[in-house]
């Protein structure tokens, strides 16, 4: 999976916002916010990876169980699916 190139992540005043660019704004004129964890996962996804890589990314960075990490990744991915910015590699 990877992020559609029409979506970008920007950090503003301690918040990370995901915004669509160009024509993507015609389908979706909203935005979503991410926290620091979400921004870490986003950066991994930008280069393209699988869910397992995202879970490992969290496990490397935070002291959580694999179950917890997997659940957090799923919440994150659903956020992205809602704005339709995920695509297959």
């Amino acid at each position, binding site marked *: 999976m990877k992020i559609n190139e029409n979506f*970008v992540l*920007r950090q*503003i*005043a*301690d*918040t990370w*916002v995901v*915004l*669509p*660019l*160009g*024509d993507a*704004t*015609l389908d979706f*004129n*909203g*935005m979503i*916010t991410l926290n620091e964890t979400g921004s870490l996962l986003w950066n991994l996804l930008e280069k393209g990876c699988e869910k397992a890589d995202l879970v490992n990314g969290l496990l490397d960075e935070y002291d959580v169980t694999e179950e917890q990490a997997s659940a957090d990744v799923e919440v994150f991915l659903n956020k992205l699916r809602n704005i339709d910015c995920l695509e297959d590699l």
Partner: protein
Amino acid sequence: MLCRIAELTVEIPTAGGLAPRCKDYMINSADIPDIIIDDSLYPYDSFPDRLREAIEYTHSGLQFYRQLLDLGGMMLHSSAVEYDGYAYLFSGPSGMGKSTHTGLWCRTLEGARVINDDKPALRKMNGIWYAYGTPWSGKSSLNVNTKAKVAGICFLERGTENKIRRLSKKEALINIIAQTTRKKLTEIRMDSMLSCVERILEDIPVFEMECLPDENAVLTAYGAMRPENQGEK
């Protein structure tokens, strides 16, 4: 025709209904324009059912907005009322009662006037944020070719009582971005917009008020937002 809008020289095609809207902004000068509105870009074909004048109004405003981004400013979907030397911006989705509220300011506070009822231009000049009247002021066309220092921005919600609170930077960020145009922006312009928003967040207090359409709402907002009453940001 050449106009002076938000302290910028703007070249605007005289087509359609724009000339009457711009009459308070027209100037006689040979200045090189800071912003040029190009009528060959008006998307008539994309909106075959819309009046040409409506397309000209909307698209000229959009071109102005995008070029204003290039110059470090932006427009916020809000009704800006000027009172006692300061501009108070009331923002929120369409239909939330922004114009109703600023209309009440004019009836409640002597000398208050709406300087832009739809999308005031915002620019930071010499360290101070100003809101400007422009010809693009929505259906009511309420606008004054003037500027006023911004005291604050307030997002309105319909409520059962008048209650105002300061927003956190994150809440303010989300609300401001939601009320500024982002359609088909290039990455560079989107970054200009975000940079402008970031500066606004540092300098201008942002509030949220649930309110009734009454005089007390005006006094509640004014009481909290007037510069003398501003506490620590």
